[in-house]
């Protein structure tokens, strides 16, 4: 049945007056959809996907509640204000898309946003191997992305997405059970709190699903768990080191000892084009080989990195070191890793399980997986699916 048939046959025929469809003439959202749902949606997780799902439902006036395990929203979007005189993205940092993606996420013409960005095309690039630094300032013209200039991904959500849905987020409620057997979905958190709704959108990282931290009733379909097994979410962390002098290039690739093709370790000038006099070197390591470093304490990680940098830069790292901040994503109890390395493919992603349980998050987006916007789009897509009758 196409959308037009659905409107003509499915909707008017099968729904009573109380569920009569409304074509919302909203001045806020850009798209106009036929609303064919007036129940309540439970959203599990307040990361990009969960927040965007809630924001979309809010735009259509649908009742919802976001249940978050930790005490903050954002998930893998997180910031630090303490290390330098500019805010630092501890998780997602780059905008792996055109700047217009931000407006597409806001999706509201009435918002007068002027978001300051910088064009990220590093000016100096080196590769270090066996402590030898080779300058490779050629070819960086083939690469360009964007970053927030004086703010972060977290600020983006805090300023534009969260304000309209803040009172719908419940914090410190790690969900442990999801019962979607009957018409009413029942979600239970670790302290025994019960939440009920008509549909549920689960946006927890796939690592949480794999760790079976949440019990489903009925159990998830075999096809679904098989697909889940094919997606990996390896360990990962970010470290920011503040120095009194910039002695490093804008981008430096340092292959790890046991690096496979899925391993990434990059040092980068986190203050590049930022409005600051501070010198902050970022380090991101993601992949199977990050296991060793993510099992260390933050002070051990800093020592290890300073040692590595000292060898490459003849002791300058220790000489100019001021302070550091480690964000170990593998140790976050409700994240447990970095991001998915494969896209989750399953018929249940689009359609949901039993028409009540939906999945959203970075792992599920077909062409922008592992990104903030990919997670956000998948949250929005699931919300729109429900709005249109599931």
């Amino acid at each position, binding site marked *: 049945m196409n959308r037009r048939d659905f409107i003509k046959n499915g909707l008017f025929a099968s729904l009573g007056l109380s569920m009569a469809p409304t074509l919302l003439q909203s001045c806020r959202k850009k798209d106009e959809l036929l609303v064919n749902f007036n129940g309540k949606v439970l959203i599990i997780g307040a990361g990009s996907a969960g927040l965007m799902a809630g924001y979309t439902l809010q735009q259509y006036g649908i009742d919802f509640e976001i249940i978050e395990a930790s005490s903050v929203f954002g998930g893998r979007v997180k910031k630090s204000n303490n290390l330098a005189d500019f805010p630092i993205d501890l998780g997602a940092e780059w905008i792996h898309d*055109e*700047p*217009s993606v*931000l*407006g*597409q996420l*806001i999706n*509201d*013409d009435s*918002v*007068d*946003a*002027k*978001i*300051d*960005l*910088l*064009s990220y*095309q590093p*000016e*100096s690039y080196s590769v270090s191997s066996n402590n030898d630094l080779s300058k490779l*300032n*050629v*070819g*960086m*013209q*083939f690469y*360009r992305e*964007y970053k927030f*200039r*004086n703010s972060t991904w977290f600020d983006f959500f805090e300023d534009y997405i969260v304000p309209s849905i803040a009172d719908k987020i419940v914090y410190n409620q790690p969900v442990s059970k999801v019962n979607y057997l009957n018409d009413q979905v029942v979600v239970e958190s670790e302290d025994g709190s019960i939440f009920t709704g008509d549909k549920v959108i689960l946006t927890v990282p796939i690592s949480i699903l794999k760790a079976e931290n949440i019990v489903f009733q009925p159990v998830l379909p075999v096809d679904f768990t098989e697909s889940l097994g094919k997606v990996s979410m390896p360990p990962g962390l970010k470290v920011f080191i503040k120095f009194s002098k910039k002695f490093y*290039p*804008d981008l430096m690739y340092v292959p790890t000892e046991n690096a496979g093709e899925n391993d990434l370790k990059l040092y980068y000038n986190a203050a590049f*084009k930022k*409005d600051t006099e501070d010198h902050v070197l970022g380090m991101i390591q993601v992949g199977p080989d990050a296991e060793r470093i993510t099992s260390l304490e933050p002070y051990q990680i800093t020592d290890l990195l300073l040692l590595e940098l000292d060898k490459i830069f003849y002791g300058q790292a220790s000489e100019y070191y001021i302070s550091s901040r480690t964000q170990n994503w593998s140790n976050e109890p409700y994240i447990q890793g970095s991001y998915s390395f494969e896209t989750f493919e399953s018929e249940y992603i689009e359609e949901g399980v039993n028409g009540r349980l939906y999945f959203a998050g970075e792992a599920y987006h077909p062409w922008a997986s592992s990104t903030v916007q990919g997670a956000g789009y998948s949250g929005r897509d699931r919300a729109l699916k429900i709005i249109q009758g599931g």
Partner: protein
Amino acid sequence: MFTSAKRILVFFVFLTICVYAKSQVEETGWNVAYYGAVPYEVGLKVGGYMNSNVKAKIDDIYRVQFGYHSLPRDHRTLFVGGEKGKTIRGAKGNSSSIIFGANLGLQKEVLGFSVGVDGRISNRVYDNRYFLMLATYYAYRRHLSKTIDIYGQLGYGHKFVTKEANKGVLLLELGITKLIKRKNYSDE
């Protein structure tokens, strides 16, 4: 964008190259080209073209050019430069040459900008950088008609820039030359 002092400098560079080439000129013309540091940067290069035949079949090409290229939201670059080329293979109607060039330029680097909900870009914050770029190109030229040549050249340029690290760029130029005076190839 340019102050008077820079305009005068540009004029003198142009004049010097013209005067140097004048005595031996076999061909003269004007060039218009798409010019950019591949793959994103797009720009335009215009200038004068001269070809002086020093030895038979070996052409010395001189070009003096002004150009502009930009990587939207990243930088805008205005430059003036000269190029000298040697034809390495030539037949009637087409030729390949190796070209050496030097550009002096101003790079207006975009430090930041704002994006609106509609995707519109505004409030660009610029920082000026100056550079000298030395470049080598491989060029292929084809005579389309008595007065029109088309050419393509691919090169490597090394940029010495103020306020940022020196770097290498890959350059692409696709152009058309309108000849005012055509060399008589049947003489060779």
